[in-house]
């Protein structure tokens, strides 16, 4: 019944403007004809150039001097930075409300850790602008346009190019070099969301404002050492409004090849912070922590491809272990007392490309509540979120399909037991498209 109206409306929409635009059409045809002419001329020129390339060679015995930067376009626009844009979105369903997400037994990190919202939704659109500044520096901006219509600066940093001696200095806001996945942008992850350990211990990822110095050893074995100081903008630190750094970290990575088919990297990282009044509210009770936070991460990644050729099949194994110790004072409602915790978590994930374009992946997450003690006499009944002795787990499976290296569609299913005694079944379909300059992906 209504369908008929729709057809009529659609037809009218298609025909009426077409008639009205007859004049424009002929203009378009003319433009097209001109374009075709231009293409033909260009083709002719290319052929001439190719013929010349061959001839000049035969004529001159010594190789001709290189044409300065063959084929580079000129003009002031040649200095425009590389711009690329990531478009993402998903359709998701989950058996529990994503807005009530929490990880039982762990202090909330305040980061973007909730599962994808239900129904159809836009993900973060990531805009990358990057370029060399001069022979000494390069700069990069990574901005996320959130579905809530906000702009979030994920990264804005400069990096030295000419320090030499294996040193590189970075300053600004950047993804910290600790762990493995932390430095990888979300659109390049093998799963739509972060491992539970990243959610619980780093609020999804660590991108503080600070400075980083890295040194690469002059050896054939990859040995990299790095240190960072930061303002403490994000979990587990707090911005303490004091002179000097509020968080610091050191990390080391070692890597190499095994034959032609295997490349690997392993590392150890440490993040130290002294949060003050790191607050959250649970079940109506305001709680806050002040003291010291120490986090260790051991990470490992291994990539395999037959004879190093990843085009047809390849395999990636990745795992990280987190261990955190916090000690200091806990304020619960109006009372205050000692508090200390030793908690850990890990994940192991694998992704396998079994034929061109298609990959399957599996991830297992687990967090260990460990030991949490307090001097306030609180029990799990008083502060269930902090004190419930519960070990969250999650199983995630995914299959993704990449028509080209610039478009990817992913189906992901997770059985998430982050909340004590509750199982959340999460299903989502995601798209990731990249436009613009050809990005390069980290190992």
């Amino acid at each position: 019944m209504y369908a008929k109206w729709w057809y009529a409306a659609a037809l009218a929409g298609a025909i009426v403007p077409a008639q009205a635009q007859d004049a424009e059409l002929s203009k378009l045809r003319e433009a097209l004809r001109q374009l075709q002419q231009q293409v033909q001329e260009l083709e002719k020129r290319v052929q001439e150039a190719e013929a010349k390339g061959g001839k000049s060679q035969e004529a001159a015995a010594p190789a001709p001097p290189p044409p300065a930067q063959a084929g580079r376009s000129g003009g002031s626009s040649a200095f425009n930075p590389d711009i690329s844009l990531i478009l993402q979105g998903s359709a998701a369903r989950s058996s529990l409300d994503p807005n009530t997400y929490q990880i039982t037994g762990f202090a909330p990190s305040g980061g973007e850790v909730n599962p994808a919202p239900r129904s159809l939704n836009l993900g973060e659109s990531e805009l990358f602008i990057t370029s060399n500044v001069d022979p000494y520096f390069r700069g990069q901006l990574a901005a996320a346009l959130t579905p809530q219509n906000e702009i979030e600066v994920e990264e804005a940093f400069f990096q030295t190019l000419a320090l030499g001696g294996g040193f590189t200095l970075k300053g600004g806001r950047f993804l910290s070099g600790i762990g493995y996945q932390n430095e990888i942008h979300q659109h390049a992850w093998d799963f739509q969301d972060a491992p539970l350990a990243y959610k619980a211990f780093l609020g999804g990822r660590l991108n503080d404002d600070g400075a980083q110095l890295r040194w690469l050893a002059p050896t054939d074995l990859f040995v990299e050492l790095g240190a960072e100081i930061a303002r403490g903008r994000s979990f587990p630190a707090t911005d303490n409004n004091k002179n000097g750094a509020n968080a610091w970290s050191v990390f080391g990575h070692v890597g190499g090849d095994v034959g032609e088919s295997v490349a690997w990297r392993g590392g150890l990282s440490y993040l130290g912070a002294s949060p003050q009044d790191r607050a959250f509210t649970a079940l109506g009770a305001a709680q806050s922590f002040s003291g010291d936070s120490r986090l260790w991460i051991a990470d490992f990644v291994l990539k395999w491809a037959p004879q190093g050729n990843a085009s047809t099949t390849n395999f990636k194994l990745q795992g990280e272990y987190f261990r955190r110790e916090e000690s200091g004072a806990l304020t619960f409602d109006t009372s205050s007392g000692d508090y200390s915790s030793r908690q850990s978590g890990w994940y192991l994930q694998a992704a396998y490309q079994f034929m061109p374009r298609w990959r399957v992946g599996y991830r297992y997450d687990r967090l260990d509540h460990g030991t949490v003690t307090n001097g306030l006499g609180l029990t799990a009944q008083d502060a269930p979120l902090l004190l419930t002795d519960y070990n969250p787990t999650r199983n995630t499976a995914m299959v993704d399909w990449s028509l080209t290296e610039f478009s990817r569609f992913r189906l992901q299913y997770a059985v998430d037991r982050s909340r004590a005694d509750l199982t959340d079944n999460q299903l989502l379909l995601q798209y990731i498209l990249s436009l613009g300059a050809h990005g390069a992906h980290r190992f």
Partner: protein
Amino acid sequence: MRPFVTAMLLVLVSPALAALNVVACEPEWGALAKELGGDQARIYVAATALQDPHRIEARPSLIARARSADLMVCTGAQLEIGWLPLVQQQSGNQKIQSGQPGYFEAASAVPLIEKPSSVDRSLGDVHPDGNPHIHLDPRNIERVAGALEERMAQLDPAQAGHYRERGKAFLARWREATERWETRAAPLKGMPLVVYHKDMSYLNNWLGMRAVGALEPKPGLPPSTAHLTQLLDQLARTPAVAVVRAAYNDPRPAEWLAERAKIPAVVLPYTVGGTEQAKDLFGLYEDTLARLLAIAK
């Protein structure tokens, strides 16, 4: 303890001092640097002939080698855009940054063909500066050799004479071989071929062979059944002599088409190391010609 530390330092540092440290992005440039540098160049090649040069990983071992490189020899023209920038950034080595003498782009010594008049990703993974697979035309090798020899002499002035002498000897042998190959390859002129990717264009251009189809529907996209079927129909009307692919290409699409079109599928080494015979640049051309001549009727 002290002697031990000194010894360790020597072990760590001495290879870097012994010669010009060259990291080649592709095997062909590693082989060329070896011809020009001889024992004065310590060469590390980022990729093997069985790896797709577009898709090398910026893996730790490669970054570690780039850290100590005096010279990085790459193709350029955006062939390595998916991985080389990361290697340069993470190497902490100012010598091999773009624009420095320690970063050598072979493509800038060569007139590029197939420069697209418009660039859009709907055309596939096109290279805006032109086709970067330049090394399968011996005249390009000659051009690059001249420029590379100069660059090596500039970076290592103490050994400049050595590089120039070797360069001269190499070019003399190379020109002689090129003439020989051109005579031998005469029967290949006009031979219609189906290629996998546009990585044989310079070879076709040099020998006057014709690519009548490509297994990739668009540059950089893996062959699809739909496209192969279409190609098979097309071959019924305009036949080709063979389906050729590089050693690093997936063999299955080429075999699928060759079997149905009843023409041979030929593996070409594509670069040094692609076949057992392609041990160096001379072997690469000898073997490529031998394999093509075997199917020419």
